[in-house]
């Protein structure tokens, strides 16, 4: 009979009207500035550069300016200039560092491919989303000083992932030390082929694609037989 469907519809809306006062499932709006969204751990927005310490972000950047991310970035929003000199990295090895590292967040599409391809765990995705600016170039083109954030911050926003990364880096470091020790012993005894690092296989993050770049990862690079000073004094 005419009107049955209409009455059914009215019943549904009435149910929602009443339900919105007592049923949280029917009243789903969050009032944003007061109620901040609960971001899931996986949430990603724009990339940032991981530095080991907060005191000296520029001195402890993990980035070695290998330029893989620059090459792989689909919208090509990353610009890197290698340094002329070398600075010791977290493991104490002298490394090239980025003299210029800039990301144009107006171009970035938050795809996180830079994170996936980075062999040094130097670039990660941030969760800061309220980044409006009135100046397109001054406000949205971020340089390395603005991009650098300490590892502690990384732990804060992606705890699980950061723990995995730290574990993996520690394993790589241990493997490197082991290799360095073996190499030192071998040099003392006789020339012997270098042992390939099993660091990546030992790493727990199986989902992470194996680094297969032209630039050698830290683990397989020959490391000076210097004990790694974890907390380093700030470099000039």
């Amino acid at each position, binding site marked *: 009979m005419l009107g049955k469907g209409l009455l059914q519809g009215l019943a549904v*809306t009435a149910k929602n009207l009443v339900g919105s006062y007592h049923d949280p499932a029917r009243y789903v709006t969050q009032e944003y500035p007061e109620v901040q969204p609960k971001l899931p751990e*996986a949430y990603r927005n724009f990339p940032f550069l991981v530095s080991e310490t907060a005191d000296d972000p520029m001195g402890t950047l993990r980035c070695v300016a290998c330029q893989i991310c620059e090459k792989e970035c689909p919208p090509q929003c990353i610009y890197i200039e290698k340094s002329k000199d070398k600075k010791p990295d977290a493991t104490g090895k002298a490394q090239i560092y980025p003299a210029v590292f800039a990301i144009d967040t107006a171009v970035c599409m938050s*795809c996180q491919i830079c994170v996936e391809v980075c062999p040094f765990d130097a670039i990660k995705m941030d969760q800061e989303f309220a980044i409006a600016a009135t100046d397109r170039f001054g406000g949205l083109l971020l340089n390395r000083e603005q991009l650098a954030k300490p590892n502690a911050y990384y732990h804060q926003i992606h705890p699980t992932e950061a723990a995995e990364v730290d574990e993996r880096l520690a394993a790589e470091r241990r493997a490197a030390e082991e290799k360095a020790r073996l190499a030192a012993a071998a040099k003392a005894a006789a020339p012997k082929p270098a042992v390939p690092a099993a660091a990546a296989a030992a790493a727990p993050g199986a989902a992470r694609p194996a680094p297969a770049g032209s630039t050698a990862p830290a683990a397989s690079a020959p490391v000076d037989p210097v004990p790694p000073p974890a907390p380093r004094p700030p470099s000039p």
Partner: protein
Amino acid sequence: MMLPDPAATGLARVRKIEGAALGLRTPAFAPEEGAGDLLEVSLGPHHPSTHGVFRMDVVLDGERIVRLKPVFGYLHRNHEKLGEGTSYLGSMPYTDRLDYLNSMTNNWAYALAVEKLAGIPVTERAEYVRVILAELSRLLNHTCLAGFLMQDCGCSGTPLMYAFREREKILDLFESLSGSRMMCNFQRFGGCRVDPSAEWLAATRTLVDGYGAFLDEFEALLSGNEIVMARTQGVGRLPAALAVNAGVTGPMLRASGVGHDLRKVDGYGVYPRFNFRVPIGRDGDVYDRYMVRMLEMRESISILDQALRGLPGGPILDPKAKQRGLRPKAGEAYGRIEGPKGEIGFFLVSDGTGNPTRYRVRAPSFVNLTILEDLCLGHSVADAVIILGSIDIVLGEVDR
């Protein structure tokens, strides 16, 4: 370089058969003698119901449409050409932006094409996860479509808000898994980027279990509503023959009574292991298109239920599969899946370098949109709006 002779290319031919294209076009409604003046209205590119920047140049006799020309390209951004200059991995996030409601299925279709091209096997667990995500996408897409369609019919936002309420839940799942709500960039060659956790699977299970109840309520609001039926039944009929000849796919084709579903036809992924049905319509009108989607969602719920139950363990991504610096042997491959809007396919030609030499997208929205004029002729402006709504287009995919 010499320009090709226009007569030798398709261009001249297309112009000639305009008006009687396909030989199946509804007889053109010539304005009657003595009928009032015709009114030419440009619906769009800024119009509440064109679902983006899309224009319909309409010639009206009163409110009846005598001519309609769809004009698109306002959102063209060189997607396919960009794909030829980008590495295989680098194109993956761009596919998110085709049909931005269904990045998961776009990713899958593209991954499938690359996997075919490079011969990369996919892990068992990833196949299941892909099915789960594709069916969630289907739920999301069809729910949103129903909401948008009803908005075009003139509802004051209520069905749309209910649709978005449920969509939020699915988007939350996508976000907690992939990190982004809509631009998931989740599939990789040989599997998926992240392994879903047990909590995620439990949350999905909750959603799937509750979705049927939502659909019941949604249908109580709309499916039996006399106004909805009066507005949508008999409007925008698409005959099965025209649908097939025009290359229409997806729910739109099935609403016209053709039971063509790539999940059954190709049996890609692990779909043959699931037990589901393919609903088909009879009249091919707007109501059938709406109802076929409603019924497809019920089937999707059943597929999700089976996939969640049968999800195997193991790695989510083939550790040997190369993502970066992929250089497939020279050759070509076409990967297609049954996306929520129809057959979404990627055609790739490799010459052995790191980029494809040809990158082509078969976008269902675009192909389905080509018959808009045939559907709209003789109907009123109000009908044209809901016919367009029932085609289910996303301009990101139409214009690429």
